[in-house]
């Protein structure tokens, strides 16, 4: 069986039928993130990336509806908490036909192998859920 070797730079991308502003709200406001981000209430402001006790980060870049860059420290697991901070970049690019491309890059994971492994499956789930929520108004079943 092939197992996922946790990559130190991970790239995830999805096209969503929504405006850049809607996507920005969906990734920075707890009332949205709770519906697709493993129930975690995320509040991202220009001061901090507050993942409601599950994730904590400081803000590197904060450009509403364009780009959000923050550090990432997992608080939901003691081993991961002890690892080095990594970095998450959200890029929001409008496309034709009312679609917006959302790209998530999780990098600087060299000093956080457990985190790298943990988020490897997680981001696909999160982005699929985010797309479903914005396009249908409903969270993914299950």
């Amino acid at each position, binding site marked *: 069986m*092939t197992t*996922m*070797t946790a*990559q130190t*730079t*991970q*790239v*995830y*991308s*999805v*096209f969503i*039928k929504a405006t850049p502003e809607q996507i920005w709200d969906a990734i920075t406001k707890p009332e949205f993130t709770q519906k697709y981000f493993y129930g975690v209430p995320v509040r991202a402001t220009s001061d901090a990336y507050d993942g409601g006790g599950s994730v904590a980060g400081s803000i590197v870049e904060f450009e509403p509806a364009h780009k959000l860059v923050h550090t990432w420290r997992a608080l939901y697991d003691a081993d991961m908490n002890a690892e080095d901070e990594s970095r998450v970049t959200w890029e929001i690019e409008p*496309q*034709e*036909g009312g*679609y917006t491309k959302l*790209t998530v*890059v999780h990098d600087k994971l060299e000093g956080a192998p457990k985190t790298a492994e943990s988020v490897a499956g997680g*981001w*696909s*789930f999160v*982005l*699929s859920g985010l*797309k*479903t929520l914005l396009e249908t108004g409903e969270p*993914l*079943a*299950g």
Partner: protein
Amino acid sequence: MVTYDASVDDDHVFKALADPTRRHLLDRLFERDGRTLTELESELEMTRFGVMKHLRVLEDAGLVVTRRQGREKLHYLNPVPIRLVHDRWIDKYTEHRVAALANLKNELEDTA
């Protein structure tokens, strides 16, 4: 030109996956991500042009995403379209039935 219609997206993903060379390329990226065309080409008995063509199909389907790092263009496996196909098709036909068949297949093949 990529069309961002949902059903067309699915078509791109299924077509991209319906080729052994392209699945092989995805497996190589699954093992180690962020590779250059030159690296990928060196593992395949195929011309540079041929590998580029396959990567292009994978990119159009969203299964491969490229990022520039300095002068290099790095290729990353993007699993999100596969997740979307999973959520759209596998969940629909109830996962436990699929899991039961997968288990049966594993059991039969193990004892064979």
